[in-house]
């Protein structure tokens, strides 16, 4: 999910409250090389693709049970941006979290945005 909006308008309070967590500087993210961040008590895998877009998925690999998705190889399949789990190599769509090798499986995606130099992930 990519959003490049300004920070959510503060104090408007009518919409559902979204808590944004700053995870790192945009420049800390190397293109196509993921990192893992703690957001609340969840492990979130964060990717910056080649075109500069940001994506955030749960770091938990549903096939192995280990928190390793951030260490997978980033690429494309049929034009979709993807990451391959480093454990058993199933491929996930970065925008939807859908597993492209097993349609029954998907991982949660998180909203992510750039706020100036910083990268923020939505907590819920």
């Amino acid at each position, binding site marked *: 999910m990519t959003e490049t909006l300004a920070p959510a308008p503060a104090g408007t309070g009518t919409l559902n409250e979204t808590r944004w967590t700053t995870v790192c500087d945009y420049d800390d993210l190397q293109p196509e090389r993921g990192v893992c961040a703690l957001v609340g008590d969840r*492990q979130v895998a964060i990717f910056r693709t080649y075109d500069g877009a940001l994506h955030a998925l749960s770091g938990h690999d549903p*096939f192995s*049970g280990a928190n*390793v998705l951030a260490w997978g*190889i980033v690429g494309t*399949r049929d034009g979709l941006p993807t990451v*391959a789990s480093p454990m058993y190599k199933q491929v996930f769509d970065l925008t939807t979290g859908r597993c492209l090798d097993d349609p029954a499986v998907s991982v949660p995606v998180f909203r992510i945005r750039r706020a100036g130099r910083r990268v923020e992930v939505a907590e819920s």
Partner: protein
Amino acid sequence: MTSRLVVVGHGPAAHRLVEALRERDSAGRWRITVVGEEPRAAYDRVALTSYLTDDADLGYPPHDESVVVRTGERVTAIDRAAGVVRTDAGATLPYDALVLATGSVPFVPPVPGAEHAFVYRTIEDLDALRAAAAGADLTTSRPRAGVVVGGGLLGLEAARALQGLGLDTHVVEVAPWLMPRQLDEGGGAMLRRHIEALGMTVHTGVGLERVEPGGVRLAGDVVIDAGVVVFSAGIRPRDDLARAAGLPVGERGGIVVDDACRTEDPRVFAIGECALVGGMVYGLVGPCFTMAEVVADRLLGGEARFTGADLSTQLKLMGVDVASFGDPSADALDVIYTDPVAGIYKRLVVSDDAQTLLGGVLVGDASSYPALRAYVGAKLPGTPEQALFGGTEAAGGALPEATVICSCNNVTAGTIRAAIAEDGLTDVPAVKACTRAGTGCGSCVPLVKKILDAELTAAGVEVSKALCEHFDHSRAELFDIVRVRGIATFSQLIAEHGRGRGCDICKPVVASILASLGNGHILDGEQAGLQDTNDRFLANMQKNGTYSVVPRIPGGEITPERLIVIGEVAREFGLYTKITGGQRIDMFGARVEQLPEIWKRLIDAGFESGHAYGKALRTVKSCVGSTWCRYGVQDSVGLAIRLELRYRGLRAPHKIKSAVSGCARECAEAQSKDFGVIATERGWNLYLAGNGGMRPRHADLFAQDLDEDTLIRYIDRFLMFYVRTADRLQRTASWLENLDGGLDYLREVIVEDRLGICAELDAAMERHVAGYSDEWRAILEDPEKLRRFVSFVNAPGMPDPSIVFEPEREQIKPVMVEVTR
């Protein structure tokens, strides 16, 4: 009503004319008589050399009985007024139409002694040559040597044939470089190196003064002693009959004809190498066949025309790749690539907008010739640069229907596709039989195969060698592209030769190629994002997301001090330890952020990376050897250490394992390794391409009783050749099983340098050895790389809380969380 056709000469052109006419003249309009001077009916002159080398039978299939073929008879005159030809057998043959297909004769330079020289045109010429070569040493009492005068396509072919007859061969070319009609100076110089590498001596820029019974004298008083001298200095069209009959001939020879191949006399045609059509005499069989087809059509009332022909040619010389296509001398844009080390020279001539291919030459690597030739005059599918490096290769399926694939037989892509579809053809021989494509010089066969593959694939038969959806190339092809073009990043490679942004298949392949070619540290810049699971953190990922640490222990030899360090490190970081099957020690259960600290301790104690994580050399196991063992005959530990240190860090298509045993009892299991060495009384036996694993294979004995230097040289070449040519994740065992020619071929490449690449392989290995440095030390010295060894980007020191262990047999083991999907 039947008419009489007389054909003078029975070479390839005449043969094709008669075939075509007999096929189409269902009404039997023409009664055909052919008069041929040679003692036998027409044969495949293009393949003449194979008569010498393989005693090949060159004969074409005979015509049907209705055709009268008078062999061994020469036409001596044409009487156009009477409408007859006369022969040296005293016959007078009346005609309603006459076709001159008298071909050409080799040009014999007017130098003194020319009568002692041979030419290279007919089977009789070759018989005479063979006899002379056999007697070459007797007549001269000098070394058995041969000289070919003329360094063009045919001259080089003849020179190689002389070599095959056991002669020490020289080539003399008056132009400043070889194949001056096809090549420019750069290409000629490169070709010269290849020819010299075959063991021939080349003299260029020097004229012939005279031929003597025992040799030749060149300008500048250079004398070459030789029992056999062959002229191959061009051809002269045989137009004497036409000339005597008052028909116009060209200033430099050739019977003048129009685009119907008709002379000034409407009843007389000329085809093949004797004809001057559109101001050209064609010395290639393809245009000769086309002329034959045109005349066959005309004789049956058709309107066919000869509109010029493709002049692409390829040198038919084992081991030397030279090709020229289109018009390489066209005055337009040049794209030139030279690799002096590999002996490659490539030049493309493209239109000023760089879109249309006009021509080009390839020396040293003509693999893209069939595809490029097919694109002459057409719009290139990519940039000229991509075309140079095989970018059109994949285009077999996409070639326009009208593209001529086989210029010898004028067969288009459309014809081939139609034949495949209509007749359900599934292999190349069937396509050849059905369409004639590939039955001439053979150079179009790879492209025919490509079209066939493309058609079969389209029909649902799987034949692709594409790495993945991002690259149409195999790993070996990508390796060459990266090496030859000096590409240093994945982004450049995929932008120019692929599509999309890669995946977990192609990225590690490219990472490995870049590493094999020595492009710095595997985690430098963009390369970091290409690395497969274990390479990413230079450690093996375990089932719970932790990592293992394996320091190198060359040959399995370790001091008590270092053993103690390993024990201390494992105790301090709480790691599980185990002796591996590779004679070293593995420490399991380390978290990402612990890896640098652990490695700092190990490196301070003198350890280095063991590359247990890489597709690289793993271990060189050894037995205890002659130092201690009562049966040992050589120091297996010493050699194992030397080998392990030499090849450590070498990135390859798959992991590489080795072992050295000190005697034939083979305690180190060397015969189950990619390269294994077993000591003998006289040296070392080398075994190649074994492995354990899923499909065990015993290694093959490659060479015996080698001294250590030779042993290492062979292993160097073996490894580098494997690194360059194997497929992704192909170990040496299956690589060798798939290598055309197998072990014998491998021996020819490594021991005899059949491909002429050994110097390059040796140099590549020297570069690897000289460029080695410890990958883990480099990490510790680079803060930017170190920064990445954290579990959480926003909590660098924090361990992953989901990693939990429990005790088992006094050590740790992972506690796995329930897998929830």
